[in-house]
């Protein structure tokens, strides 16, 4: 490896080093997370106390919070941008971008990504799209506010709501750039994993994190271009007068010229990405959880091959279930039956994964560091949230809970909270690898316990407001006396949400202070097997001094016994450790 002279710009800004790019993704993701999370605090205040005046609303929302009360348009804008930021900017780019970049070269034994230059372009496109998305919040006519699913005609016609003006244009441009960034990243991940594995690193010896990143990248590559085409056609309809999604519209006293299009087409295109997107978010979190649970239970992950198989099954099925978001759109009822069938099938590989995690805990020697707590919390929340999918995925039952708060509670638990917990597990686990320092453990414990309690406290009661028939995206439910008795539940939810928000402040403090002042990390603080812990603590270009280590075993030889059933002295065997005399490779 030749060492170029590095200036501040090439080292910290336009860096092509995967470790630096990973940190850039993480920090950008955290900043976007703060914005998106803070928005949810504001609209939770509105939902719990629709009649009260809060100076904080006026201070932050200006015209949209005049006199301390939120306007309906502002509310719609906040939920829209909250959803967009959380789904795409935090849980797609922030999670997958950070850990794919950090771990792929380090865990497969490569000097860097296949193309460091593309990797840099990918991050900076993501950064550009983040800037545009944040800028769109401040436009005069209001941010995009047709919901994160931006269904036309609402999103297509500025006459329909003021947020569908410039705010929507910026939203679409931002997403188009975001998709380009995501595709460049995915291509790089796939090529790197397939081509740059070190000697001995067979596919069947890859850690589950890498399998998860590989499968995620493949789904992203298959489905993101479809969203791009959906967005482009919407731009055409909005700006060039085409009728892909629009037909027979009479609004504000005039008939528009659009003829022959269908909003259902947009829904198909959107959800063809939209559903796989759930797994683009979830699989990396599941991969991280597998790694952390196995390491800290000091046991091999149970059913390594079944875990890979079920991830592949989930990935395949995820591309043929999009119609379950559209049961009541007027789609042919026969299609509803087909999508019910394919959707409920996903429960099988999900159940396999859940039971494999549980069995991994069984008879372990569980080390409760912070990452482990977040991983166990992730599995718990994944099950709690996933189970209600049996209701929503069943077309007949979806009729009455579709678009209610039941849906909101379901997907926040199963993909929002569980991926976020997975992401936190990853941050706590690989912080020493990223920053060469340790995070404070006590603050980490407090962060976990407040977060998990707040998460359940917010989303369990929310299911019940949905079962009471309360639609989502209602700025206030005071227009219906029928929902008056839901007011106390909304107050409970909001207080738990505020608790959850507060807990994240602890994390932020811990993260940034530890990055500069934390205790210097040792090389392998968690006594883990994967290759990244054989690399030196300080970041060097090319990852390893001298040769790249050679791999002799899979990543999960924890607490292994020899042929006579005796335990080895050290309860872990790193992947680069040759098979010992009398030891059988698993």
């Amino acid at each position, binding site marked *: 490896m030749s060492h170029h002279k590095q200036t501040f710009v090439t080292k910290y800004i336009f860096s092509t080093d995967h470790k630096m790019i990973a940190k850039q993704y993480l920090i950008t993701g955290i900043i976007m997370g703060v914005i998106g999370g803070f928005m949810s605090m504001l609209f939770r205040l509105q939902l719990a106390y629709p009649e009260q005046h809060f100076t904080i609303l006026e201070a932050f929302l200006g015209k949209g919070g005049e006199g301390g009360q939120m306007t309906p*348009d502002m509310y719609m804008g906040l939920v829209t941008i909250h959803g967009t930021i959380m789904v795409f900017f935090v849980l797609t780019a922030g999670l997958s971008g950070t850990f794919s970049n950090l771990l792929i070269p380090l865990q497969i034994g490569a000097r860097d990504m296949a193309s460091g230059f593309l990797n840099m372009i990918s991050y900076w496109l993501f950064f550009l799209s983040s800037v545009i998305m944040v800028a769109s919040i401040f436009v005069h006519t209001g941010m995009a506010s047709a919901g994160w699913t931006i269904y036309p005609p609402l999103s297509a016609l500025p006459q*329909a709501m003021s947020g569908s003006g410039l705010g929507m244009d910026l939203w679409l441009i931002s997403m188009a750039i975001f998709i380009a960034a995501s595709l460049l990243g995915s291509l790089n991940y796939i090529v790197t994993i397939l081509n740059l594995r070190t000697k001995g690193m067979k596919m069947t010896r890859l850690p589950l994190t890498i399998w998860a990143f590989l499968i995620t990248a493949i789904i992203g590559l298959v489905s993101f271009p479809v969203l791009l085409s959906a967005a482009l056609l919407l731009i055409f309809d909005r700006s060039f007068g085409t009728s892909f999604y629009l037909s027979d519209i009479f609004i504000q006293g005039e008939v528009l010229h659009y003829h022959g299009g269908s909003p259902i087409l947009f829904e198909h295109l959107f959800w063809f990405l939209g559903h796989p997107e759930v797994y683009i978010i979830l699989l990396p979190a599941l991969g991280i959880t597998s790694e952390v649970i196995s390491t800290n239970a000091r*046991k091999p992950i149970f059913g390594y091959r079944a875990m890979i198989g079920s991830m592949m099954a989930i990935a395949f099925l995820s591309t043929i279930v999009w119609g379950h978001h559209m049961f009541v759109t007027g789609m042919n009822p026969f299609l509803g039956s087909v999508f019910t069938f394919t959707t409920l099938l996903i429960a099988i590989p999900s159940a396999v994964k859940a039971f494999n995690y549980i069995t991994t805990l069984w008879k372990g020697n569980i080390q409760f560091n912070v990452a482990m707590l977040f991983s166990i919390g992730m599995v718990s929340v994944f099950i709690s949230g996933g189970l209600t999918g049996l209701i929503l995925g069943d077309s*007949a039952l979806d009729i009455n809970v579709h678009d209610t708060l039941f849906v909101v509670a379901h997907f926040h638990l199963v993909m929002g909270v569980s991926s976020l917990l997975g992401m936190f597990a990853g941050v706590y686990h690989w912080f020493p690898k990223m920053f060469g320092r340790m995070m404070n453990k006590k603050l980490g414990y407090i962060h976990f316990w407040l977060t998990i309690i707040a998460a359940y406290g917010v989303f369990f009661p929310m299911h019940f407001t949905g079962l009471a028939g309360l639609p989502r995206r209602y700025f206030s439910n005071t227009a219906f006396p029928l929902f008056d008795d839901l007011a106390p539940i909304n107050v409970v939810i909001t207080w738990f949400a505020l608790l959850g928000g507060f807990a994240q402040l602890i994390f932020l403090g811990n993260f940034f202070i530890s990055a500069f002042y934390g205790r210097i990390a040792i090389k392998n603080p968690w006594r883990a097997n994967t290759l990244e812990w054989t690399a030196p603590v300080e970041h060097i270009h090319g990852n390893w001094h001298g040769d790249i280590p050679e791999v002799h075993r899979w990543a999960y030889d924890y607490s292994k016994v020899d042929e006579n059933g005796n335990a080895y002295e050290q309860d872990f065997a790193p992947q680069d450790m040759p098979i010992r005399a009398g030891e059988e490779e698993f």
Partner: protein
Amino acid sequence: MKALFIVLIFASIAIGFWQLAKIFGTTKNDQVATKKENNINGWMMLFLLAFVHGLLIYCMVAYGDVLLPNLSASTEGEGIDLLFKVTFGLILFVQFFTQILIFFFAFKYRGNIDRKATFYADSHKLEMIWTSIPAIVLTILVGFGIYTWDNVMDVSNQKDPIYIELYAKQFQWEARYAGTDNTLGEANVRNIKGINTMGVDMNDKNAQDDITVLHEMHLPKGRKVIFQYRSQDVLHSAYMPHFRAQMNCVPGMKTYFGFTPSVTTKEMRKNQDIIDKVQGINKIRAQKSKELEAQGEDSLEPYTFDYLLLCNKICGSSHYNMQMKIVVEEEADFNKWLSQQKTLASKIN
């Protein structure tokens, strides 16, 4: 004074950071987890188990009254309710079972320096068990679900249905009854003019006897009602939760959904679930009224139960207040009400 205050705040924050930084730099807590930490967090796992299940049970008990009534107001809804109960029962069972396993194992096998973990990496038998049991259960659930779905969604070959069009626009519902010929006249937004707000084609002979109403829609008990949905501007969704009915209204397209109302508004008001819910609501409203009166404002009227049609697809600023009252009555009363309504043709002339 204010400036001094701000400077002091920033100074104290800075000192706080400096102190914290010192702690961060010196605390020796980078072993994986100490014995004490394993013990505390292990026990906390049991607490979390109690919290998760306790919260679920609390929600089910405390919020039982606010839910939709157990009694479906349509015949087709009964099938949906049965399927819901079966599925929900299954969910509760699996939820309790798996969460107990997770947190109990986490507690029981909390780290201990004297013990070694068991190397147990695979078992085909176990994998078979938890692949095949969910597969069998889901096969049943899918079959049951598709059977219910087909029953609800099939609107062909109905005996003597009545046809009603629901028309959505920002932010109002209108309804159109098919009249004596029981056939809805053609319509398109390009025909909208003056009082003909739904764009009905008045040259169509089927449209001559069509009756349009605002604000309140009546339905006959015991007769299949087939709804045709249209929208004039953006997507809306016609949600009638008590009837377990929902369908989107799509501009440029007609969509259909049908159900048979089986409980009149009067009967529903006597249902115990509804009585409990109305009582709960009126308690809250009475309290709010007191507060309003104290501020010199009008008090709230007590709430009486009515069926409702809500918009359930984001459609703009007033999405949260796009509603229509539904009255279900005996067929004779329904016919009498309908005969008192004016046809669109007579309104136009």
